[in-house]
């Protein structure tokens, strides 16, 4: 049978299963009650790739918890129900969705992608004192006391890749950066500029491209004109990274590549060569990486989750697949510490002692200097390298340690890019 129809069948199966779980829940499990969690992200339209795969991950997470009889919080047992609302990445639909999730569905927590949709939701969330999470820490400001950025403090962790290269590849002295021109790409450029400066690498040029770009040959041509030692792809959509690598390969590049993500790197290797991609540095491990079975990792059974996900949604795995789900782990940890599912209490529980249970180990609540509020969770972050066609965690680097030495440089570059919280329009 074809892959396409398999995928379709799995999709239908999953939908039916999710439905069955909701219906059967109260009868089957010992759970006393249901806790609802809102998922407010783009599920249709061209930003859907940043929402829909995350919804799949959250549904698997909830299913696994419910299969074990629900989650225990403050002496009560709850089934978890994920309530989704497609915001189409539009502020008006996001506001409508937030109202529905809070006032009608009675969710205890809302997960969002953030970005364009966040400013319209913030006033609603603040009034309702609703705990909201974002994948984009640039949404944080002193006006967002109920907003946390707990999964990835993008783009700060990108410094770990540069740091590792400086220690392990001291001969690489020049770099060129290309970046998609949006809320994801721009702050990431500031991070890379700061990290390269801190480690003595000269950045020859920074080239922005629009997110509607499909032909990356001209972008790569312009980059390679500088003959850099390091090609920095910044934070770009998966397919952009893929196209940029293809172009670098075709146009004869032979130096080091660093990128925030390298989703579907197997495809990139197929498009280029194993030799070409060997040594590429990025920041997102595969969840079957043995290094993730370390007890300090706060993600339940990463290898099993990875496997279930890939069986059900082949070809859909990416960073967002686990990130939204990992935020649920943090939420659960906070709720347990608080002994309650009340949003304000959970927030307090999450932030107890200024530490939080991040997926990659215990981390600090931080961000005052960059975002005006300590609602971003930073600690260790993995540096991942492609070795013989497989992504391998080469080292965990501690971000607060880097910050204590080079934080000022980072702030300078954020200011220059206009990305400090007080500069944002």
């Amino acid at each position, binding site marked *: 049978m074809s892959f396409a129809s398999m995928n379709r069948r799995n999709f239908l199966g999953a939908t039916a299963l999710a439905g069955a779980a909701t219906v059967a829940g109260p009868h089957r499990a010992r759970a006393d009650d249901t806790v609802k969690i809102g998922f407010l992200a783009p*599920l*249709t*339209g061209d930003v*859907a790739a940043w929402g*829909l795969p995350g919804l799949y991950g959250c549904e698997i997470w909830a299913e696994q918890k419910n299969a074990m009889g629900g989650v225990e919080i403050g002496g009560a047992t709850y089934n978890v129900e994920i309530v*989704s*609302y*497609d915001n189409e*990445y*539009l*502020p*008006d639909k996001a*506001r*409508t*969705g937030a*109202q*529905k999730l*809070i*006032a*009608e*569905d009675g969710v205890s927590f809302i997960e969002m992608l953030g*970005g*364009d949709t966040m*400013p*319209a939701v913030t*006033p609603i969330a603040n*009034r309702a004192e609703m705990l909201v999470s974002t994948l984009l820490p640039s949404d944080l400001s002193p*006006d967002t006391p109920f907003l946390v950025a707990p999964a990835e403090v993008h783009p700060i962790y990108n410094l770990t890749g540069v740091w590792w290269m400086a220690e392990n590849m001291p001969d690489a002295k020049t770099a060129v950066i290309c970046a998609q*021109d*949006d*809320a994801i790409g*721009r702050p990431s450029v500031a991070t890379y500029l700061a990290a390269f400066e801190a480690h003595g690498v000269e950045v020859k040029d920074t080239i922005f491209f*629009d*997110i509607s770009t499909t032909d990356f040959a001209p972008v790569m041509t312009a980059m390679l004109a500088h003959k850099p030692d390091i090609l920095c792809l910044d934070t770009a959509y998966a397919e952009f990274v893929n196209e940029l690598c293809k172009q670098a390969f075709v146009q004869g590049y032979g130096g080091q590549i660093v990128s925030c993500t390298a989703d579907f790197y197997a495809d990139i290797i197929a498009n280029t060569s194993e030799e070409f991609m060997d040594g590429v540095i990025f920041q997102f491990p595969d969840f079957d990486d043995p290094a993730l079975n370390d007890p300090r990792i706060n993600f339940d059974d990463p290898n099993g989750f990875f496997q279930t996900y890939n069986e059900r949604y082949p070809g859909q795995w990416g960073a967002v697949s686990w990130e939204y789900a990992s935020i649920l782990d943090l939420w659960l940890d906070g709720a347990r510490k608080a002994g309650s599912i009340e949003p304000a209490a959970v927030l307090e529980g999450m932030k107890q002692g200024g530490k939080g249970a991040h997926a990659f180990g215990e981390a600090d609540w931080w961000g005052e200097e960059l975002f005006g509020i300590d609602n971003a969770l930073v600690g260790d972050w993995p540096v991942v390298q492609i070795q013989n066609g497989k992504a391998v965690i080469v080292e965990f680097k501690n971000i607060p340690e880097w910050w204590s030495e080079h934080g000022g440089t980072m702030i300078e570059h954020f200011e220059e890019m*206009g990305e400090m919280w007080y500069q*944002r*329009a």
Partner: protein
Amino acid sequence: MSGGGAVTYTVWAVLIALPLLAAWLTLDPGLGGARRRIWWAVLAAAGAAALIAAPRVATFSQQELLVFLAINALVVASYRLLALTGEFSLGHVVMMGVGAYATALFSKRLGVPVPVSMLLAAGVTGLVAFILAFPLFRMKGFYFLIGSFAAGEAIRLTWKRFQDPFGGPKGVSRIPGFPDMEVGPFELLFWEPVTYYYLALAVAAASIWVLWRIERSHIGLVFHAVHWQDQLAGAVGVNTWRARATALVVASAFAGLAGALLAHYLTTVNPNRFDVDEMVYVLIWVIVGGTATIWGPIVGLIALTAINEVVLRDAGVDELRPMFYGAVLILAMLFLPEGLETLPRRVAGWLGRGRPAG
């Protein structure tokens, strides 16, 4: 079901039925003057009651929908003014964006009081439209459609490209809201959807009344003449360029006002919100509703919003929602090619034909 069940579906049905009846009254010549006036009075009273009562019975999320509905009613009604001259623009939503950005920058950067800033924004939008009229009205029909898209998209990309003052791809946030007021014993807090709905409704209703007056005036007749008898109108001394430009400027100014309403409600604007996808939705509302009466686009807007935002969301189809919406569009065009506004007349026709035959 999350949508609030039978009550809210009834609200939507009433909101769709009233403009449908108004369209029927406008189109159907079969009623005598006195009876017609009575019907109008009844409809007007029922409409006012329904519009005022709607947010009181709607659920929280549907109160939000009502706010956007009131704003979009102004967008589609103003769009129709331009359509009267026979031209369909793909730049109207960008004009709305011009108003939104203008009021955002005036009120946030320059500290202009919000109500003043909104009016200024409408003026700025009219001015931008006036400038665009020079190149655009060298074109007609399909060329105008594409030309208006190009002009609009160039403006929109300028917001995206220039961080200062437009905020780049992220746009402008933390725009001041409409100032709270005390009117007698009432405290009007405009962050509340119900209060803002009444504001938007009042602005939209007044604007639509102005648009309707324009259509019924001498200028409106010129618009019709330009549409149907372009060369003849020119030959008898009507300045067709001036008529088209007037329609574009007035339509755009009201679109800008609608954009300003949106900006101060959401407190954020970004280039993405005014892209061609959004424009396509406006075009869909107008065409599916029909353009023969001012009620047609409004029927299209309310009916399609109800389907997309209430019925299909309640059905839980999530990522497949656009597929059903697309099917609805096609069916509407195939079975009611002249728009939903002709539905009552058709139904009456079927009933009339059915009786003697059956």
